[in-house]
């Protein structure tokens, strides 16, 4: 009996000890993450403008209605979807391809690797400005090359055309983001046992077969999770759109997150911005739920 009591108190002491250590981070999260988040949700149902902060009447769903009624609203939804699918898809394909190429040995590989990974290290706003000038329809280098090659007769306004502006941003985004996938997949590829390839070679498998029957299944779970993580971060990546087009022309290259960013700067209607933020948050939340489920489902699949 005595020993059991002692055991219990030892356990309680341990729990208290753990709680004491967790408390700072929990409090930090509550104050800097959950308080602003919950406040944001409440703000989305209120009439909050920077000009009149004393008056915050509840206006029901008015802010949501205003956001959904935007003249370029449909293109925001379409772009947000395409932004996720195209950017992540292309980044994955290019990044994976890159990492497979980097598997092989060639002279100057290290230098090449560093060059490939540089875009990933540059700030999105800076990349936006660089690509904005590259796509410039007056003196941009891309137009210059196309005109010199005779593909175009006169420079084309890539960023001023409602049909091309958004895709130009996608190109720039893939340019920066593929390094991310390349780094992750390169690391994953190193975990695949060489024995399996040797065994497959003995069995007479060719390169394509080895890729589909050994490489891909071995790193499948990691790839899936990486894609999901990337999708979540892509939802919240307005910097490049902001830097390159500012959402233009005529709002046709906005995604939800870039719309929120430009409005925070140009408007003081924080109620509506919060409503857009809540919608963005819900989408991200859905992606996160899929991620959590996927993590559980894929657990142990690599073993």
């Amino acid at each position, binding site marked *: 009996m005595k020993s059991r009591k002692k055991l219990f108190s030892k356990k309680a002491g341990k729990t208290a000890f753990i709680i004491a*250590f967790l408390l700072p981070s929990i409090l930090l999260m509550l104050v800097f993450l959950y308080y602003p988040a919950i406040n944001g949700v409440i703000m989305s149902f209120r009439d909050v403008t920077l*000009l009149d902060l004393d008056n915050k009447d509840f206006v029901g769903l008015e802010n949501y209605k205003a956001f959904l009624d935007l003249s370029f609203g449909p293109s925001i939804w379409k772009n947000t979807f395409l932004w996720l699918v195209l950017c992540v898809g292309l980044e994955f394909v290019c990044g994976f391809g890159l990492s497979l190429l980097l598997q092989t040995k060639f002279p100057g590989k290290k230098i090449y690797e560093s060059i490939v990974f540089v875009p990933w290290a540059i700030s999105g*706003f800076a990349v936006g400005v660089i690509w904005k000038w590259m796509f410039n329809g*007056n003196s941009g280098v891309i137009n210059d090359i196309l005109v010199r090659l005779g593909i175009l007769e006169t*420079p084309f306004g890539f960023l*001023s055309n409602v049909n091309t502006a958004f895709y130009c941003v996608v190109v720039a985004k893939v340019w920066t983001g593929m390094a991310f996938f390349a780094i992750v997949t390169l690391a994953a590829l190193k975990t695949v046992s060489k024995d399996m390839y040797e065994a497959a070679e003995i069995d007479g498998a060719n390169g394509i077969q080895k890729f589909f029957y050994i490489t891909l299944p071995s790193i499948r779970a990691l790839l899936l999770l990486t894609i999901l993580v990337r999708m979540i971060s892509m939802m919240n990546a307005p910097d490049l759109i902001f830097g390159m087009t500012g959402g233009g022309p*005529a709002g046709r290259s906005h995604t939800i997150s870039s719309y929120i960013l430009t409005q925070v700067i140009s408007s003081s209607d924080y109620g509506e911005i919060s409503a857009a933020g809540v919608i963005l948050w819900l989408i991200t939340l859905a992606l996160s739920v899929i991620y959590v489920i996927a993590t559980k489902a894929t657990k142990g699949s690599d073993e």
Partner: protein
Amino acid sequence: MKKKLLALLLSGTMLAGMLTGCSSAEDSAEGASVKETTQAAEEKAQAAEETAEAAEESGEKVVITMVTTLGNETRDQLMKDLVEASCDNIELEIITPPSDQAGEKIVAMLQAHEDIDIVEDGLDRHYIENGWIADLTDYVAEWDEYETILPSLKDRQASFDGKVYGLYYGRYERCLFYRADWLKEAGIEVPTTWNELYDAAVALTDPSQNRYGYAMRGNVNGGDYMQMLLQASLSSELMDLATPYITKEGKSIYEYPEAIEACEFWIDLYNNASNPDSLAWGYPESVEAFYSGTAAFLINDAEVIATCEQYMEDGTWGTAPLPVHDETGESWFPQGGAHFCITGFSEHKDEAFEVLKVICGQEGNMELSKINGTLPVHTTAAQDPFFGEGYYAAYATMGADPNYKGFSEAAEYAFATEEELSIIDGFWKEKDALFQELLLGELSPEDYCADRASYYAWAHDSEWVAERFGLD
């Protein structure tokens, strides 16, 4: 066990430190507690004044901290040198937050009553109402050089409630930049009216050579340029300098048929005389189009003169006064005013005003204007050859001509009620996207003007508008 105790102690200390940190941060973040902090700051200021006096006696310098919105090393160094030369007891320290977030950063600093004495661009209703900006009326009354400040700027300084809250150290105005060599080649005179500008721009457009007449700005604030034409067409007959978006009839400027004409003019200018890519252009792209030799005309601020001097050969370009409206003969344009304010909670207001007297005084301001690209704020400056001749001569002409009307952008903010302000806010929200839709032909001039006018429709029933213009 000892280790555990130590660890617990450490984590406890961290927690305590964090909590105190949080509480002070929350105090400053909440608008409601501004008053309390103001009181505390006043007490602090009193105490500091005493120490300042003590410091003066002992020969130590008072450090005046200035926060600027746009960093400029040459300007900042000159301001420091000017202050050092004229004030023995003052040392000027300048802080510049990164420009893309300067506004928010400064608001946060003011909110937290950080140790700032002078703030740039503080003439903001929001700042003044929160008590962040000091009243300088008594100070300027005792300053003899205040008399020669441009009358229009004096009015603007006092436009909020009759009191002076800040001093202008420079003004920004647009002028017309033109390719002198192209005009000469084509035998065209420098345009003086909007229609002449249009005709010349169309004549000089040749897409096969990548040459266009006008360096249009279709993106960020592009609509403001079209608005100049609209305001000029309504002219002083209907326009009031203090309310550039509302006419003397108590209507939005966009309610008049002239607004639709201005839209049509601008659409033609875009389609017939501008690079199609200019739809996506903001400030840097349109300026680049001019100095790189692909556009004949550009309307922009004085600082572009320095850029052109750097990249273009003398004689190939020139500046001219802004075009006037063909019928009314007037030109209306937003006049930017770069200014400094003293913070309401500054511990060294007297010394801070000494600094402003140096920077905004006749001599110091002339020196500052020359290196800063801003136009001087004293009437005496016109006698200086730098501002009376060469590329700046256009501004001297504009300054002397009463038909050139420079107004403070959105000046009606100073009068509008909270409710009216919250409606006006919508005007700025999607303006770039709507202007681009107008240029693309996706939005008709009628719909565009109706949308723009809707944010000022309150002017019909506004009490202060009726009172100001004697309407029923």
